[in-house]
């Protein structure tokens, strides 16, 4: 191990707020620890203090392709495969899976949808806003419960293309 290599590792640490880095070789062993501190305080007495969620933003490693993807979307981001697209809520409101309480849901997990097909409704200010598919694909996951409140940019469904 040369000093030059060590320096490279230290630079890696500094640039990524790593506070620990352990390597080992032969059959490799790695241990990386990032600094908890750089992030916001995690509050005491946990749950009750409110919606303090894990802070790290998880992103699809592929470029996000959903047209309404919010660049700095928050906490509950699902992991996406490169051919998956997130459908986000364009507004704050209440999520409904069907056009009316007695009607069947617009879509179920596993359904194929074509571009422009209704996926769900967001009710805001007593207006029913239909959310439609921006791409053709399969509904892989539905991330919200019927009648659940949702925020702006909140992930609603995952579509798989191609």
């Amino acid at each position, binding site marked *: 191990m040369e000093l030059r290599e060590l320096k490279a590792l230290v630079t890696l640490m500094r640039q990524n707020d790593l506070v620990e880095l352990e390597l080992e070789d032969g059959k490799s062993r790695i241990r990386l620890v990032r600094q908890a*501190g*750089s*992030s*916001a*305080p995690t*509050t005491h007495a946990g749950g*009750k*203090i*409110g*919606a*303090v969620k894990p*802070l790290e933003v998880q992103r699809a490693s592929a470029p996000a392709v959903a047209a309404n993807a*919010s*660049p*700095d*979307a*928050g*906490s509950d981001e699902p992991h996406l495969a490169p051919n998956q697209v997130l459908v986000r809520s364009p*507004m*704050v*409101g*209440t999520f409904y899976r069907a056009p009316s309480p007695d009607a069947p849901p617009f879509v179920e997990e596993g359904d194929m949808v074509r571009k422009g097909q209704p996926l769900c409704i967001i*009710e*805001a*200010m007593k207006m029913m806003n239909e959310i439609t598919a921006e791409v053709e694909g399969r509904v892989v996951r539905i991330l919200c419960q019927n009648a659940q*409140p*949702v*925020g*702006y*940019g*909140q992930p609603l469904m995952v579509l798989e293309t191609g």
Partner: protein
Amino acid sequence: MFKKVLVANRGTIAIRIIRACRELGIKTVAVYSTADRRALHARMADEAVCIGPAAAEDSYLNIPAIISAARAYGADAVHPGYGFLSENGDFAEACQRSGLHFIGPRARHIRLMGDKPRALRIMRRYGVPVLPGSEGTGIVELKQALEQAKRIGYPVLIKAAAGGGGKGMRIVRDGDELARLFPLAQAESEAAFGSRKMYLEKYVEKARHVEFQILADNYRHVIHLGERDCSIQRRHQKVVEEAPCPVLTSRLREKMGRAAVRAAEVVGYSNVGTVEFLLSDSGDFYFIEMNTRIQVEHGVTEMVTGVDLVKASILLAMGERLWLKQRDVAFNGAAIECRIYAEDPETHLPSPGVVSNHHPPGGLGVRVETALYDGYHVPMHYDPLIAKLIVHGETRPLAIARARAALREYVIDGIKTNIPLHLKILDDKDFQRGDVHTDFLTRFEPKEEVRQLRKAG
């Protein structure tokens, strides 16, 4: 009691409201923009919902989004805080229409006080002193200006009837000066606002900004909680506020307090509010406007009266009867608030960035209201107010000493703040004597800028 309050704000006042709700056992819903996902108010509330993109128009000023959030999350009341939608009559009305309690005055009072000429007319009619000014909708002819100025009495301030911000403003001390400067001001007004209509107003020299805190219930009981002196301002942005005003006699306090109560009474105002006066060196005072919301500087009144104003706004909005009579209000000691802005102390330009080494002061008589934490990124999109340092002491000199000590302990790295300016103010001999006026801060401005500011009146 409300069950769940949606806090339609961010930053220090959102934190303040969440704390008050928590003490009352009320649940809270925070709203945040995409720029505020990691903001403290969003983390502290029981629930938090993203209401739109970073731009305030799309989030914190987005009435449908906020009301929709309140309904979706089951809030029964909305607290607007200050700034943003707090003085928007349409928002108050939209809340009521959606079955949400608006924690503040009725929409019509917000609108009335937001219409300055109308508010002034009402005050004048009911005998609340207002600044003498020109009559009618605007002066175009110099001859008319000279007549009106004579009636008002010099010195007189020439203002553009159509706009503000210093454009078209001139102070004149006699008829000759008026004759010379009126056309110039008019030309400026025409260039800036496309209007040659001017307004004349009595110019008060060595004026102080003194405002009275009002509490009013829904049953026409109104009291005041004394005054705050907010003369330390920079371009109408308050920087330091204190209670009590160091030059007010108890007799003048009573007189101004009565006028403030009357201003609220004659319109049937309810909830918390603030009546702002200009106070002249000779003890004359003039109604300027009424703010129909909690003020940034409410904390100094809380320190000297012991009344929790945010809690009061909630209780009054629930329809509680006023639990204090005027004679129950007692004043204790002196309080000073330093507004900490994320700004360059020299250039006054905003200084967004990531906060590090955050170390607020503490100890006896020291109160900090802030939404900062280590690693927090102060966004560039909103007001640069990041913290309020409020100190209380038995006497004004003690409060000053305490504020200085606390400012010297304060550590906020990663961004620039106006803490150095605060230390300059507190070290100033005139400030320490209480000898301040609304132009006080110009002494710390570069010379050229002072001239500009002075010119702007």
